[in-house]
């Protein structure tokens, strides 16, 4: 351990760490471009200069190790002078693109200028022109060489993280240009991350291009539902321009740091899947005998329609012959929701045909982040429903339904046509008396159902997923449920209530607390202890 002082504050840190790591631990600010904790040290931007007593010149914090008794000043005259001079050098050739640059509002040249700069600029000459300006270098990323500060974060990302060697810095001196190999594209499964790590507007996301100014965005922590890894993310939604892009509320996803799950990264497929939150949402509740006109007029109206549908459904459930209902649950549901599925269908209604595992849906897996299992909560489903791939295989339920051995079928968000084919869906539909579909996005199964209960996407509710390593992680509500929809846990607790069961859940926290009481895997957990990083459950 080493005892050091940073800006007058004394701290004890591990021996051998760099000054910038110590500064970050102490939550003191220091400008930096090339330094990124997930990448090797480049030491080329030269802006992270600090004054260290007894050293003649300022030093870069990212490549200087702490020593016992070191006294560091990040904002002394000397340090500030060094930082400002580097800032001025970088801004000398930087194009005045702020009005048209997506990075504005989260740009490290802007931010550092306001925080550490505020000097009188002296550059009075023509700026260097570079070859590629506003040039798409692949399906996901746009390159602007003139904005680039040549920090080489993207080069190191391609060499060290994805090992796809996408980028290089060509030429020499102030004609240096960042680029991909001439004629090649940036085309790997993690390409979106380079727009995250680029501190300026040189590499920007094509999907997000010109969509919204970032100061109109709100952010909420959540977890990506794209596969069993559960990469930690931030959901960025518009919060001041509701009619800017009509009904699109979520603008983009960004990875959130979690050293135990996804480090600092997320895959492209997960990143761009945010569109499912707003696209193709089911907004109209449907039930036999219910109104067929649009239920999205006033918020109150659609609630009334959903309430009526639930009442009708509850009645159908109550009056049904024992064993006449089959349930296709889904590992897309949260732990809370699966807990209520168990309470409602297995415990209360004694349903025997209860399954959740859809065959043939495994996809690509790599040795980095992407898992073959494209569900966020397979582990939770298996544990809470006490089933595995064989005993929980929905094929048996679907077969029985096709044969007419199941009278009524409750489907949670799975599209039977996608898993088994349109013919199977037709066969099931023809044999089953009542088909209930509950889910956020439309699909052929929803179209064929008698009861359609629109439910919230993962971005519109609180809850937890359990990833493939048994880590229970929180998702949090970022935006309100789309008009007409409710979180699945709320729909299920309404049904439980209507069936005369004891229900006193006001929020998802309450459901989780109940789950933690009954299921040993979750013992001792609550939303507060799960925090931002999640907890691994007991084996």
């Amino acid at each position: 351990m080493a005892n050091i002082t940073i800006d007058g504050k004394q701290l004890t840190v591990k021996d051998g760490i760099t000054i910038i790591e110590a500064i970050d631990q102490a939550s003191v600010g220091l400008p930096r471009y090339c330094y990124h904790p997930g990448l090797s040290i480049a030491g080329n931007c030269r802006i992270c200069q600090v004054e260290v007593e007894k050293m003649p010149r300022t030093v870069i914090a990212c490549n200087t190790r702490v020593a016992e008794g070191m006294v560091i000043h990040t904002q002394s005259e000397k340090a500030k002078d060094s930082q400002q001079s580097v800032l001025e050098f970088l801004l000398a050739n930087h194009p005045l693109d702020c009005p048209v640059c997506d990075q504005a509002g989260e740009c490290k040249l802007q931010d550092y200028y306001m925080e550490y700069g505020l000097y009188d600029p002296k550059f009075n000459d023509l700026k260097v022109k570079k070859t590629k300006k506003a040039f798409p270098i692949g399906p996901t990323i746009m390159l602007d060489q003139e904005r680039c500060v040549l920090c080489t974060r993207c080069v190191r990302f391609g060499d060290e993280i994805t090992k796809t060697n996408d980028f290089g810095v060509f030429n020499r001196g102030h004609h240096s240009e960042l680029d991909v190999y001439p004629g090649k594209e940036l085309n790997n499964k993690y390409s979106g991350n380079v727009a995250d790590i680029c501190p300026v507007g040189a590499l920007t996301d094509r999907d997000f291009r010109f969509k919204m100014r970032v100061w109109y965005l709100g952010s909420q922590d959540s977890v990506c539902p794209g596969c069993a890894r559960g990469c930690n993310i931030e959901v960025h939604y518009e919060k001041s321009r509701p009619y800017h892009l009509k009904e699109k509320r979520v603008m983009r996803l960004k990875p959130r740091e979690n050293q135990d799950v996804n480090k600092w990264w997320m895959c492209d497929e997960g990143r761009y899947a945010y569109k499912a939150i707003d696209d193709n949402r089911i907004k109209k509740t449907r039930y036999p005998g219910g109104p067929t006109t649009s239920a999205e007029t006033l918020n109150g109206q659609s609630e009334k329609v959903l309430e009526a549908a639930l009442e009708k459904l509850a009645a159908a459930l109550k009056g049904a012959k024992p064993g006449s209902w089959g349930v296709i649950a889904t590992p897309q549901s949260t732990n809370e929701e699966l807990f209520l599925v168990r309470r409602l269908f297995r415990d209360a209604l004694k349903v025997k045909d209860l399954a959740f595992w859809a065959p043939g849906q495994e996809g690509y897996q790599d040795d980095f982040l992407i898992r073959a299992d494209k569900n966020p909560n397979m582990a939770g489903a298996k544990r809470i429903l006490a089933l595995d791939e064989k005993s929980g295989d929905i094929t048996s339920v679907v077969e029985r339904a096709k044969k007419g051995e199941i009278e009524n079928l409750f489907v949670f968000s799975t599209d039977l046509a996608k898993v088994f084919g349109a013919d199977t869906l037709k066969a099931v539909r023809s044999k089953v008396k009542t088909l209930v579909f509950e889910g956020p996005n439309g699909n052929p199964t929803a179209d064929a159902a008698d009861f359609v209960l629109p439910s919230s996407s993962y971005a519109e509710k609180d809850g937890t997923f359990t990833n493939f390593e048994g880590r229970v992680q929180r998702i949090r509500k970022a935006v309100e449920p789309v008009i007409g929809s409710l979180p699945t846990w709320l729909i299920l607790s309404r049904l439980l209530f209507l069936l005369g069961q004891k229900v006193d859940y006001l929020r998802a926290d309450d459901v989780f607390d109940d789950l933690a009481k009954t299921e040993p895997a979750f013992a001792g957990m609550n939303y507060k202890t799960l925090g931002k990083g999640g907890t691994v459950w007991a084996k």
Partner: protein
Amino acid sequence: MTEPVLSRNFTVADAWKMDVAENHGAYETAKKVLTTMQPDDVTNQVVAANLRGLGGAGFPTGKKWQFLPKESQKPIYLVINADEGEPGTFKDRYILERDPHQLIEGIIIATFAIRSKKSYVYIRGEYVESARRVQAALDEAYKKGYLGKGVFGSKHDLDIVVHRGAGAYICGEETALLNSLEGGKGYPRLKPPFPAIVGLFGCPTIINNVETIACVPHILKNGPEWFAALGSAGNGGTHLFGVSGHVNKPGVYELPMGTPLREMIEKHAGGVRGGKKLKAVIPGGISAKILTADEIDVKMDYDSLRAAGTMLGSAGVMVMDETTCMVKMLYYATKFFSHESCGQCSPCREGTGWAHKIVTRIYHGEGSLPDLDVLLKIARNMEGRTICVFADAAAWPIQSYIGKFRPEFEEYIRTKGQGIHRDYKEYDPRVGAPKQIGAH
């Protein structure tokens, strides 16, 4: 000075061939050292001789060798820096082309001293003839058993490889040279770690200039006291000084360390050409701060020039007479640095380019007086904040030319380029067409 040491074979015909070189004593000392001495004794002699690195930095050579780890699991490398590129310097080319066996003998003794079995000679790409001759000399040495397994039949093995650069001044910087030798761009490395600990391929490495290593056989032959006494206090030996510019006899001059600059120019190089008056002298390659005509009574060694506020550097003396326009010389100096900056770190990449743009504007008659202070600010902001000393080297000409010739710069700006010493007024190849100066 009595006998030439380093340059004694420069005018001997075909001295780059083995038979001629051996007739003049090549390899005798190396044979003796390898069969009768211990490695550390050799190093001690080099330390006692006050041999300083003759590439530009002047770091005590023996001390550098002593930085190597005592025990090393990894192989130790000796890399010869023959990437001569400092404007005003040409001395190493003479050794490479005219007496390469002197260098090879030095490598044999040095690798013996530092316990290295492999040496790379990094020769700048444009020195094609030098590379050919060194390779030919190596081939001859291998044939005679002076290289390869068991040098001179001793237990010392040694392989030497000639490696050609491809045109980049920055590869003369030690760690940039290593990166270039490893097959990459000439980007200098962050220090620490220093090459003696982590160098070529991550192994302990000593990088020495051609001339420095060429001194080693002489030190071992005649003893360190003799070598030290040839020079001045703390700066042992003779040195190959390159004198060029406005002198009557430009060329390589082997003189003792500590020879006064005035003597070098007036006596050895024949004085300023055409009987003109001296205006300024760059004492050590383009990076060295310039001296005015009344500052040339300084001794030419590392310590004296440092005390005089400049440096010996690569000993490339460039003489400027009264017809020289300092604005133009700064234009060409900043052009050099902006072309040769590797571009890795922000202050140098942007600063050298920015400085050249300003000086270009001034040179073409579109400058203003505040530009001079901006140039000095750029120079001050580049100094000490970069990965290597290239930025410092780029800053020094700016600071010293403006610092010592400010009235000339101000006059030039005020007269929009008429200047008092503009020595041509016709075709300006920089611009491409005859430029109407002052015709606003």
